[in-house]
């Protein structure tokens, strides 16, 4: 079974990020790392391919300046190869434009299954995976907390607020996996060395048969109008036990939809 994982290379969240004052989006120059939330998708894809007893895992990514640092991490975990779309005309691309680009790149790999995170750690739109599925005309199942593939179908336990739904759909399909769905493996030294020589196919917008006006700032239908700082965290609420504290704690957590 061939699996494509959409992976994003992002600025290291441990470093203070900077916004571009013009586009009001995160500056993404310099070294990028594999988005932590994508490590779960890579691990899930590797496990599914291993279980299927054949096929390979291909990474698909879009990044500025031909950046491959994050891809190398996922290749070191065990992915076989990567397709990277990098093109100056992609600057300012919005989520839908990105979906068009990734969908075109994914098509080349002819996957049985596409895996993505529910959302990226730098942009958080959470809209990209279903857009990709829609463009490719494939079914999509989001928020998978467990995944099983058998008999040409993917069976997913889909996280909901109250519990989970058991959902299945025919392959090929796209799924998004939640953080913690599996424990991502650490790349071994052998894996890191092997990743050096794994193929990373670098493509331009033209290679994908897309025109420059479909992508980048020119093709974007979405614009960041304004950015404001997050509100300071407010002081917490103290619940004093007068015999009913447990009920009030439960009610509080319920109101936050944490239980």
């Amino acid at each position, binding site marked *: 079974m061939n699996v494509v994982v959409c992976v994003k290379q992002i600025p290291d969240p441990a470093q203070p990020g900077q916004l571009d004052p013009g586009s009001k989006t995160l500056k993404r120059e310099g070294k990028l790392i594999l988005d932590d939330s994508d490590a779960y998708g890579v691990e899930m894809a590797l496990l599914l391919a291993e279980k299927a007893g054949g096929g390979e895992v291909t990474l698909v990514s879009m990044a500025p300046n031909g950046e491959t640092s994050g891809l190398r991490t996922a290749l070191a975990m065990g992915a076989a190869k990567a397709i990277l779309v990098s093109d100056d005309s992609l600057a300012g691309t919005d989520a839908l434009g990105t979906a068009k680009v990734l969908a075109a790149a994914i098509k080349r790999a002819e996957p049985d299954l596409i895996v993505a995170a529910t959302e990226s750690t730098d942009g958080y739109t959470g809209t990209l995976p279903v857009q990709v599925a829609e463009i490719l005309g494939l079914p999509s199942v989001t928020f998978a907390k467990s995944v099983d593939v058998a008999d040409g179908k993917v069976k997913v336990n889909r996280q909901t607020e109250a519990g989970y739904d058991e959902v299945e759909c025919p392959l090929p399909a796209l799924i998004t996996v939640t953080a913690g769905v599996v424990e991502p493996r650490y790349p071994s*030294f052998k*894996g890191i*060395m092997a990743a050096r020589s794994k193929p990373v196919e670098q493509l331009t917008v033209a290679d994908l048969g897309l025109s420059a006006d479909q992508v980048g700032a020119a093709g974007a239908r979405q614009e960041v109008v304004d950015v404001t700082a997050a509100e300071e965290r407010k002081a917490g609420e103290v619940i004093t036990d007068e015999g009913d504290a447990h009920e009030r704690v439960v009610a509080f957590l319920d109101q936050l939809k944490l239980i």
Partner: protein
Amino acid sequence: MDFDLTEEDAAFQQVVREFARKEIAPRAEQWDQEARLPVEVVHQMGDLGLFGLVLPPEWGGSGASFTAFCLAVEEIGWADQSVGITLSAGVGLGAVPIYRFGDDAQRSAWLPDLATGRALAAFGLTEPDGGSDAGALRTRVREGPDGWVLDGAKAFITNSGTPITSVITVTARHAHGGVSAFLVPAGTPGLQVEPAYRKLGWHASDTHGLVLADCAIPRDNMLGQEGSGYRNFLATLDDGRISIAALALGCARACLDAASDYARTRNAFGGPIGRFQAVAFSLADMATALEAARGLVMRAAWLKDHQRPYKQAAAMAKLYATETAVSATRAATQIFGGAGFLEENPVARFYRDAKVLEIGEGTSEVQRLVIAKGLDLPVSP
């Protein structure tokens, strides 16, 4: 001249750092309290390739440089010195001598499990009456009806009594005076592993005395040429000194990180204590010594990787890095004050763990002796 790590070594360093931070650091205090070697973590480190790093792929290893191994030891040691010494000794004293001095039958018998962290091997050199006088070997070997028979005692043998210890290399003297090394499989009748020592530090590392009484092993279990035991273990110790020095870097860096954080966040007399020169300069000295030690360690590893002479460099790295680690633990606990004296604070554990760095695999005095001899001085022990 190039001070950058290779791209792969740098990537690997990040992975081990992440592993140490997530899988080891949160549980180090518990293992220390329980005085238990976490075998499950040895397996995890095996999966990561740490135990086979410097071994070639045909024996289950990764063929990495000694420098990469030192980076790994530092990162693990940053989280837990006990787990760090388990790695350092498991590779340097356990697996590598079998690879370097063993024949293919011995290698294939032991290395695959050692390279993957499924088993640990130990090196029995030091004796209760020996210590730094390692040549004064009293363990005897004689020919028996089916092979060799060993009699004697060994002291302070790391990894010799773990649940996954597979084999112990033991040095012994022949009646003709020569010294050879022998592979004694765990569980061999006549090999008695004494109860674990109660130590000042390294509580989660496994250390025992051994008694060999009429301990019979097959003829094929001699490791290396007959009479080459003394020369071989000296070579083994040179490597071990660099990796103990790398372990010391981890200790000193952990203290610098913890004490710097504390100096930025702990308030006294109306602000963070890091604004007092008494604290800030202590940290500045710690950072400088750590950087100097790192230079010595990385250079010694580089010399070894480039097949240059490194005996002096290894001795200097071990001497300076371990004394730096001991000073760093003392300074860090002082910055923490009373909080640094509590076992819940990692610097207290590092304080206890550091002292042995100046002792194991050649004391500071032995390192000075090696260095002085390199200056062509007529110095004697």
